[in-house]
C-alpha cells in the first residue's frame, strides 16, 4: 500500500507539477508573540508560519493566534496540521487554508499537541491546566491527570515504539504513562524544572530532558535511571532535535547557545554561543539536509546554519518569539513526524 502511495506521490511530483500544499516539504514556525508587540490580541505577526524548503517566503497560515506549538498527522490519504494555540487546538486539513478550533472553553491555552501517529482519532494536548485526550478527532476531550501532583504540562509526547506510552513534562518532574494517559507515574530524573523531553529517533530507550538550571539529563533505559550529561549540566535547556537517524543530537536554551552530542546525549560540545540572542527556544534539523539547522529565538526570529552549526545567519521573522520549528513532511512518509 505504502509503495503504491509513494508511486502516486512521485507521479504527482513529476507529472502534476509538485506536491500539494500540505505535502510539499516546508519549514513550520510557531510564533508565540513578537518583540514589537504592544497589546494582546492585536498582533497580526503571530501565528503559524510556513516557508517551503525551496522558497524563502514566510507565510502566516493563522494570523493573530498565539502559537506555542505545532503538530502533524499524516496517513496515505490525509495530511492534518495541528496548531497548539492560545484559543485552543486548531486543525487544518487543507494545508492551512482553513482552520477549526477543536477545543472548547474548558481548555485554556494549548502548549503542545501529540497526534497519535496511527489512529487519527486520538489526540493529546498539554496545557497549563493539565493533559487532555480526545478519541474522536477532537470532538470531545477528557482530562488525563491521574497520578500528577501539579497541573502545568509544558509538553506531551508519544513514545515512538509504543503508542500507549506517553511522556509529559511538569515543572516539578517528568511523568510517564503506560496506558494511553489513563494513569501517570513520575520518572526520577533527580532535578526539578523539566522543560523538554526528547526520545531518540532510533534507539527508543534513550530519553533526554532539558531542565531549567541543570542542563541535560539522559536516560539509556527508557527513564528508569538518569544521569548528568557531560559538558551541558548547569544551564537552561529548552529544546532538542536530531538528525533522522539520531547520530547527531542538538540542544539549545537560555543563554546556552547551541550544543551537539554524537553519543546519544551522554556528552555535549558547544557549537555556537549565540551570546547576543539570549534565549534560543527551539531547534530543528532539516531531515532533507542535515547540514541545515534552524533555531527559534525569543524575539529575534529564526536563525539558520547551512554548515552544521559553524556559521549562522538570520533566516526570517526577525521580530518573532519562535516556540517550535518543524520540517514537514519528514523524509519518511509515515507517522507524526520524523
Amino acid at each position, binding site marked *: 500500500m505504502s509503495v503504491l502511495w509513494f508511486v502516486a506521490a512521485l507521479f504527482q511530483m513529476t507529472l502534476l507539477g509538485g506536491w500539494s500544499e500540505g505535502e510539499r516539504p516546508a519549514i513550520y514556525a510557531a510564533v*508565540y*508573540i513578537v*518583540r514589537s*508587540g*504592544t*497589546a*494582546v*490580541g*492585536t*498582533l*497580526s505577526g503571530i*501565528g503559524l508560519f510556513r516557508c517551503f524548503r525551496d522558497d524563502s517566503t514566510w507565510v502566516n497560515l*493563522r*494570523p*493573530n*493566534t*498565539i502559537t*506555542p506549538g505545532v503538530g502533524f498527522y499524516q496517513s496515505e490519504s490525509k495530511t492534518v496540521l495541528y496548531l497548539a494555540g*492560545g*484559543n*485552543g487546538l*486548531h*486543525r487544518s486539513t487543507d494545508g492551512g487554508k*482553513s*482552520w*477549526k*478550533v477543536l477545543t*472548547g*472553553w*474548558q481548555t*485554556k*491555552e494549548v*502548549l503542545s499537541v501529540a497526534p497519535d501517529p496511527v489512529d487519527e482519532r486520538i489526540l493529546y494536548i498539554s496545557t*497549563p*491546566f493539565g493533559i487532555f485526550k480526545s478519541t474522536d478527532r477532537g470532538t470531545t476531550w477528557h482530562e488525563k491527570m491521574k497520578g500528577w501532583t*501539579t*497541573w*502545568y504540562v*509544558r509538553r506531551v509526547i508519544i513514545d515512538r515504539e509504543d503508542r500507549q506510552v506517553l511522556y509529559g513534562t511538569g*515543572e516539578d518532574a517528568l511523568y510517564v504513562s503506560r496506558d494511553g494517559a489513563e494513569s501517570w507515574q513520575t520518572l526520577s530524573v533527580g532535578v526539578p524544572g523539566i*522543560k523538554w523531553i526528547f526520545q531518540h529517533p532510533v534507539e527508543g530507550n534513550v530519553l533526554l530532558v532539558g531542565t*531549567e538550571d541543570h542542563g541535560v539529563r539522559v536516560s539509556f533505559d527508557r527513564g528508569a535511571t538518569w544521569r548528568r550529561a557531560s559538558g551541558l549540566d548547569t544551564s*537552561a535547556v*529548552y529544546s532538542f532535535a536530531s538528525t533522522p537517524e539520531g547520530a547527531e543530537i542538538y540542544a539549545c536554551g*537560555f*543563554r546556552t547557545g547551541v550544543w551537539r552530542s554524537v553519543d546519544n546525549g551522554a556528552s555535549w560540545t558547544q557549537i555556537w554561543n549565540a551570546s547576543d540572542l*539570549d*534565549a534560543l*527556544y527551539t531547534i530543528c534539523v532539516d531531515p532533507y539536509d542535515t547540514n541545515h539547522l534552524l533555531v527559534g529565538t*525569543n524575539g529575534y526570529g529564526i536563525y539558520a546554519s547551512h554548515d552544521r552549526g559553524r556559521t549562522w545567519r538570520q533566516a526570517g521573522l526577525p521580530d518573532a518569539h519562535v516556540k517550535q520549528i518543524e520540517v514537514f513532511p519528514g523524509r519518511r512518509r509515515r507517522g507524526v513526524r520524523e
Partner: protein
Amino acid sequence: MKTVLLVVAFVAGVMDVSSAQRSFEERREKILVVASSERDRGFATITAKLLTGQDLPFAFAMLDSLTYDQSIGGMFYAYTLIGCYLHGEHVLPDTLKRKMREAYRVRTMYRGDTENHWVMYYTGLYLAAQTWPNEDEARWFNGKSSEENFEEARGWLNHWFDISSTIGQGEFDSPTYITTFLTPMLVLYEFAKDPAMKTKAQLMLDLLFVDFAAEHLAGNYGGGHSRDYPEDIINPLAAPSTFWAWLYFGQPETPPWNETRYRPRHRSAWEPVFGAASSYRLPDIIYHIATNRSKPYVHTETKRVRNIIRFGKEKNPPVYKYSYVTKNYILGSLHGGILQPIQQHTWDVTYVSDKPNNTIFTLHPFSSGKELAMFFPEEQKFLSDEVDRYHNVYTNPNKWNSSSPYEQTLQHKNALIVLYDIEEGTTHSHVDGFFPKTLDERIVDASGWIFARSGNTFVGIFPLKKYEWKEEDVNWRLRSFERRNGFVVEVGSSDEDGSFENFRTTLMKRRPRARDKGKHWEVKYRTRGGHVLQLTFNGKRIIDGQQVDFKQYKFFNGPYVQSERGSGVITLTYGGKRRILDFKRGRITETP
C-alpha cells in the same frame, strides 16, 4: 406583616424611579451627546453617534475602517463590534453591516489569557452567534458553526457567573479593568434573547456595581485592588471607574470630560456610553450603598487569586479583603502576598479631596520571573523582560504597583499594620511610600510618626525602621532600605478626633513595639481606639487577644452586603429594603 416578594426578572422599569435615577437619565443623555461629538475611532463614541444620529458619515467611515484595521483586534474587538452593531443596527447601511458580519469570519479573534479577556471574548461570541444563527463553520473565524459558538460562549459565561458569585473574581475590584466587565455585561443584558441569560447579565451587573458601591467614596474606588495602573493608583480619580461612578452614582459631580484630572485618557474610557445606551438601571439600593456615608462601617470580602498554573498548592487560593469606609476616607487592604501578578495594589488610604493624588500607601516593588511564571506559561528566565514591554514598569524599582511575597497586613477599622520581610538577594529590596504633594500638611515628627492631613482626613504613619525622603513630581517618596521593615498606620478625621492637633497628640504618645530577632519579625500596637493589634510575619494575626481566622471570612460581610462563601446568594440591605441576588436560581428578589 406579609412580605411581598417582587421578582424583578428582567424588567428594570418596574422599580420606582427615584430622584437619583432621574438625574441618571440626565447624565446618560449628556454622555451620549458629548461622546457623539468626539472625533476618535472608538466603538463607544461611534455607538454614541449612531444612537444620537450625530455625525453619521464620520461614524460610518470610522466603522468601515475598523472592519479591516488589524491594529485593533482580539477580545477587545469581539464585544465592542457586536455591541456597536446591535445598538446601531437601525441606521447602519447594509454594506457596513455585511462588513461587520464578515469581520467575524476573516479576523482571528484571540480569546486571551485573563478573566477580563474571556468575558469580552465570550460575550462578543455569544451575541454574534445569536445575531447570525444557523450559519455553518466556514462562516466563522474559528471554524465552528453558529450553534457551536453559541453553546461554547453560553457555557463559559455561566461558568463565570458561577465562580464570580461563589468564590469571587480573580481580577476583583479593579478601577481600571472594571470597564472590561461592565461593558460586556451591559451589552449582554441589552441584547441577550434568552431570558435566563439576560437575568444572569443583570445579576452580574448588580454584583459588579454593589462590589464597587460598598467601597466607593466620592468617585474613588477605595480599598485594595487586584489590578491597577500606577498612574491611577497615585491619582485615584483618574481611573476609568470614576467615569462609571459619575454615571451611576452621580459622584463626582463634575462630568469627567470637564476635568483634566480624570478626562478619559484612552478610547475605552468612553465605554460608559454602553451604560448610557442600555436599559439597565442601577437599583436604588445600590445607589444608596454607594453614596450614603453617614456612618462608618467595616466591609470585608473574599475573592480569589487569579489562576495559578505552577509553583502553587492551589489553583485559586482565597484573597481576604478588609475595608473601613467613612465619609472622609477609606482605609483598605488585602491580606498580602502574591495575589495577582504585576499590578496588585495591597493597601491604601484614599480620602475625599478636591485635589489630585488623594491617596497614601506603601509597597515593596517586587519583580521576579518566578512570580510571573506562576500565572503565565512562558519561561521564567525571560518573562520579566516580556512583561516589561507591555506594562513598562514591572522591573522598575520606582514602580507604584506590585505584589510581593514579602508583604503582609493586619487591619482593624481605621488602623493597619503592614510588615515587610524581604529575602536577601531580592532584586529590589527597598520599601517605598507614596505621600502626595497635595497634602495640606505633612509633618515628620520627632516621636517617629509621620503625620499627614488633607482637608478633614488625618493620617499617621509610624515607620518601624529608618528611611529617607525623595521629592518627586507629584509626591514625596519615602524609601527605606531595611529589608525587615513595616509601618503602623492610623487614620482619623475631624469627626473622629476633633482636630488634627488632637489626632497628632494622641498618636505621639503611642509607639509600636517591634520584635526583630532571628526568624521572628513581629509588631504589636495599641491603637488610639484601644484595640491591640499584633502581626507576626508568616505568623499569627491577633486583634485584642483573638487570632484572626480568615477561614471565617464571608464572601461579603458588611452592613450593606452579606453573602456566605460558595452560596451564590448575595443579599443587599439598605434602609429596611433587601435585594437578593440569587445566582443559583437565576433570579433577583426585592423586599418590600
